């Protein structure tokens, strides 16, 4: 009898919490498949599905201007989003147009300053606010060795508040990946037309943007690793429960069978 109640408890252990939240409007048209970014939990996607169905159309830059305000309203950190783009856009603009109304040297200095500001903002602020990722380095005071830390915000997938807007993360990642692509296009065109005077600005831009991309890529890899680990440990718990259950069942069956067999034999 006791083993039977144990069985019942184990059965409860196996129930995963995938209940449907009845506060969410049902029969909503299926949202587009999320990007490969793993932070979007299933629940948060369903909750924000009206936003996400509208979001793909806003990803083309041509439709930014008419719906700029509503565009920013979808984000939970509109200031961070605008800063994310501000320094990059300014830097790019000044690089392109600057030599028309100021000397080359001022263009270079201002570009370098803007690029440095952009690097700092993206690394320290927008990454934290928009996608909850952070990368930095820690110097070990004893040995003096540098350790690079790539961290993601400690949150489970039930904590959908920490999983920010899917809009936020899509915005962040697309702009982040777009920047080195743009700058390397500029670099290639400068090489092609043999204009070497912008070399300093372009190399700075490339170095800074590529290092940001690299840092956040490793952070997201760490995040994916964590998610996998969490899922694995959840699965492991489930498997262990099943094994326990199965072992008990097998043992029970063996004794029971043996008893029966023994009984029958006799």
């Amino acid at each position, binding site marked *: 009898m006791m083993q039977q109640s144990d069985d019942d408890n184990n059965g409860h252990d196996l129930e995963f919490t995938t209940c449907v939240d009845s506060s969410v409007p049902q029969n909503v048209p299926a949202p587009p498949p999320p990007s490969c970014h793993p932070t979007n939990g299933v629940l948060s996607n369903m909750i924000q599905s009206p936003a996400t169905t509208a979001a793909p159309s806003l990803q083309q830059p041509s439709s930014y201007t008419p719906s700029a305000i509503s565009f920013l309203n979808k984000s939970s950190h509109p200031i961070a989003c605008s800063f994310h783009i501000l320094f990059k856009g300014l830097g790019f603009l000044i690089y392109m147009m600057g030599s028309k109304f100021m000397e*080359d040297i001022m263009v270079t200095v201002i570009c*370098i300053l803007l690029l440095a500001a952009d690097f700092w903002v993206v690394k*320290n602020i927008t990454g934290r606010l928009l996608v909850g990722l952070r990368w930095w*380095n820690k*110097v070990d005071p004893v040995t*003096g*060795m540098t350790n690079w830390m790539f961290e993601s915000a400690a949150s489970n997938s039930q904590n959908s508040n920490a999983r920010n807007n899917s809009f936020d993360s899509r915005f962040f990642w697309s702009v982040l990946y777009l920047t080195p692509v743009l700058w390397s296009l500029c670099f290639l065109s400068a090489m092609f037309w043999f204009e070497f005077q912008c070399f*300093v600005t372009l190399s700075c831009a490339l170095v800074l943007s590529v290092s940001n991309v690299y840092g956040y890529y490793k952070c997201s890899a760490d995040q994916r690793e964590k998610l996998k680990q969490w899922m694995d440990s959840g699965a492991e718990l489930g498997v262990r429960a099943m094994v326990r259950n199965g072992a008990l069942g097998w043992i029970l069956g063996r004794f029971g069978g043996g008893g029966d067999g023994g009984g029958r034999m006799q």
Partner: protein
Amino acid sequence: EPVTETIIRDVRAVGGKLKAVLLPLDRNSPFGYVSVLQEDDVEPSDGQRNVLNQLRDWDLWGPLFICLSLALILTTKAPAKQTSHVFTTVFIVMWIGSFVVTINAQLLGANISIFQSLCVLGYCVFPLTVSALVIAILRCTWFGTLWLDLIWLGLGFVWATRVSSIFVGQFVKRERRLLALYPVFFFYLLLGWLILLF
């Protein structure tokens, strides 16, 4: 953490390091050169160790700003046609020079982390920047002769090589120490010559 706190934290770190590079290392041995060249193991004394520990928390913002300011100071003195050349030269010399010195030290068997050494070498350019500023200002007045410029430069050079030579010398064995230190001196000499030239 709030944004302003992040900004203030970074600014304080940079400021602290700038101050550390400028202040005298140690009362007892004003020039660390002798110990660096002769002893087997460079044991930094307390004052020097403080400075080195502070410089250990590396960040590259300081060197970036120092490089920009040095380049700007030199371009204000340069004739109008050549400003961008001057700027580019100074920028490239400083970064590539630090990189080459670091690689050289690493190839000689020191296991210095690249970023830390870039940081230290970059911060140590700060005294040279100060002397370049002094030269630029004094050139407007009647103090701006070549010999006085050389004095300022000499001071800046000694101040700059002090910390960096101890830092680099720490990691290299005695036989090869001169080989590792020679590029450091040469690097700062090159920067000083550029300052004089422009």
